[in-house]
């Protein structure tokens, strides 16, 4: 499930962009350190493979449903976690750009949800321990299944937390989570079965392919990996607790309880304060009042909405419509001019 641009607030989008960028730089460095120049075309072609495989559907027996490979886990098995993370990031970027899946603001969230959890959590902490040395076909299949489920559950939880923390929608945490997690359990099982089927084939046909990634990865990068994990956990935990503490009534987002200039109740913690001040500066949750005077609307034109009065409302609507017409008109004129100039020249 892709997180969508329209649902992300600057604080959440920015935080996850930062996290994904950090992971990208770390992974790029790790890949460069491996000094396997053959890895670059390999990563690219494997990315293309995952893209293509995502379009091939598998029927799940007895259910009438179908699904496909997610790819993150498969890539981690073939390329190692760092290279897999980079490939997933590229796949998501291409999807965001060409198919508008998710979008650019939410790209950080999507890279984190679909790249990080698969490559840096499900693969090293679930797949590798369960699969062991890869000698047993059953264990490999089980590992693929479990790791896919874990990756999908964490990814879906990521979507829920990011959406609720962004506060653009009215969905409550519990409602949204109850909606998303079971669906993604099913998706995870399908993905797991698909991945296990592919791995089973490759194990039989060319087992050496599954053994190219050394394990454990060198100690230095392991430390970095776990450092990254720790940082990410703190980050997520921080966002969560800030969120929970600012909304004491459980994790329910109810923006109207925050009206009337009430200050957010912040714990005495610099990270929290920074996040909150970032949030305030970027004005995603500007204070507003319903019956505010015209004077206030005048004083603060930038927030004329929702500090509304009948006058600004109507002029806003008229102006919005006019703006739309104007934008379209200018578009047409520019285009018409361009083509006539071309025809003349």
């Amino acid at each position, binding site marked *: 499930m892709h997180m969508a641009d329209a649902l992300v607030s600057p604080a959440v989008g920015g935080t996850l962009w930062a996290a994904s960028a950090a992971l990208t730089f770390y992974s790029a460095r790790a890949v460069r350190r491996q000094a396997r120049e053959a890895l670059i075309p390999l990563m690219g072609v494997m990315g293309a493979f995952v893209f*293509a495989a995502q379009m091939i559907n598998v029927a799940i027996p007895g259910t009438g449903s179908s699904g496909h490979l997610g790819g993150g886990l498969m890539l981690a098995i073939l390329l190692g976690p760092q290279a897999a993370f980079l490939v997933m990031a590229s796949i998501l970027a291409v999807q965001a*750009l060409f198919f508008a899946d998710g979008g650019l603001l939410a790209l950080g969230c999507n890279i984190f949800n679909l790249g990080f959890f698969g490559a840096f959590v499900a693969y090293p902490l679930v797949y590798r321990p369960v699969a062991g040395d890869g000698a047993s076909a059953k264990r490999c299949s089980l590992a693929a299944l479990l790791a896919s489920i874990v990756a999908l559950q964490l990814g879906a939880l990521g979507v829920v937390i990011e959406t609720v923390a962004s506060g653009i*929608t*009215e969905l409550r945490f519990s409602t949204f989570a109850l909606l998303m997690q079971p669906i993604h359990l099913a998706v995870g099982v399908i993905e797991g079965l698909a991945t296990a089927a592919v791995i089973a084939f490759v194990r039989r046909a060319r087992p050496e392919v599954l053994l190219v990634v050394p394990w454990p990865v060198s100690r230095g990068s392991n430390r970095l990996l776990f450092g990254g994990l720790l940082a990410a956990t703190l980050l997520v935990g921080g966002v969560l607790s800030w969120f929970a503490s600012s909304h004491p009534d459980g994790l329910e987002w109810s923006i109207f309880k925050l009206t009337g200039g009430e200050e957010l109740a912040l714990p005495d913690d610099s990270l929290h304060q920074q996040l909150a001040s970032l949030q305030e500066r970027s004005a995603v949750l500007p204070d507003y009042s319903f019956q505010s005077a015209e004077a206030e609307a005048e004083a603060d034109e930038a927030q004329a909405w929702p500090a509304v009065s*009948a006058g600004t409302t109507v002029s806003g609507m008229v102006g*919005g419509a006019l703006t739309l017409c104007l934008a379209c008109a200018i578009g047409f004129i520019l285009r018409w001019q361009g083509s006539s100039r071309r025809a003349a020249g």
Partner: protein
Amino acid sequence: MRAESRWLELGQMDDAARMDSAVHRLDPRAKILVTLAFLVVVMSFSRYTLSALTPLLFYPLVLIALSRVPLLPLARKLVWAAPFALLVGAFNPLFDREPMLHLGGWTISGGWISFANIGIRFILTVSAALVLIATTGMHRLCAGMERLAVPRVLVAQMLFLYRYLFVVSGEGSRMVRAAQLRAGASALSLRVYGTLVGMLLLRSLDRAERVHQAMLARGFEGSLRRLDAHSFGWREAAFVLGWLSFFAVARVWNLATLLGSAAMRAGG
């Protein structure tokens, strides 16, 4: 089938990117920076903002007009991408029933306004991303990213990813067609699926090996050097400064309301 039409779409975007216009010719860095600024500005508005967001539509529309990329494929993609955001946003009117606006006899709740806000945001951010790729194309975008200090490994393998998307997916769809003709079903059974996708995987591995050999054969030594005719000149500077100041103005003043009240004063 969705998948097939997706490839057509990919091709359309690629065609659009290979057109020629002043916008296409701009250094990709300028377009990347302006797009990012645009997204941040859109994101920074409150979730009850409607009219103040409308002037921002100028950005994608003017770029589409100047670059003459076809509008229809972009619009179609916008529609394709809509469901999830709108689905999630559709809960707002349900949960947020607090009245917010009184227009004549009508009362509009905050939920409907924030729902509309999600819709406008969606149109703005998605069209900005589509315009970026439609006027820049993957390979120029990669060149721009590289010059903006995005890690080279990422950029280089992204180029390969894009290049071999077409090759590998063609291979994949031929294999699927062959399997479907024999199986008669549209989705494959788990066994057939494992074999087919596994084969595709092994072929892709071989492909990567041959590509690497072909690179070595032409003197590849680890870093990808590319033709890049772009430079950041006064056009780019004007493009970036112009749009950034427009975004700043649109962020600070509600241009739509100003225009509306001016129009009403003139009218009444």
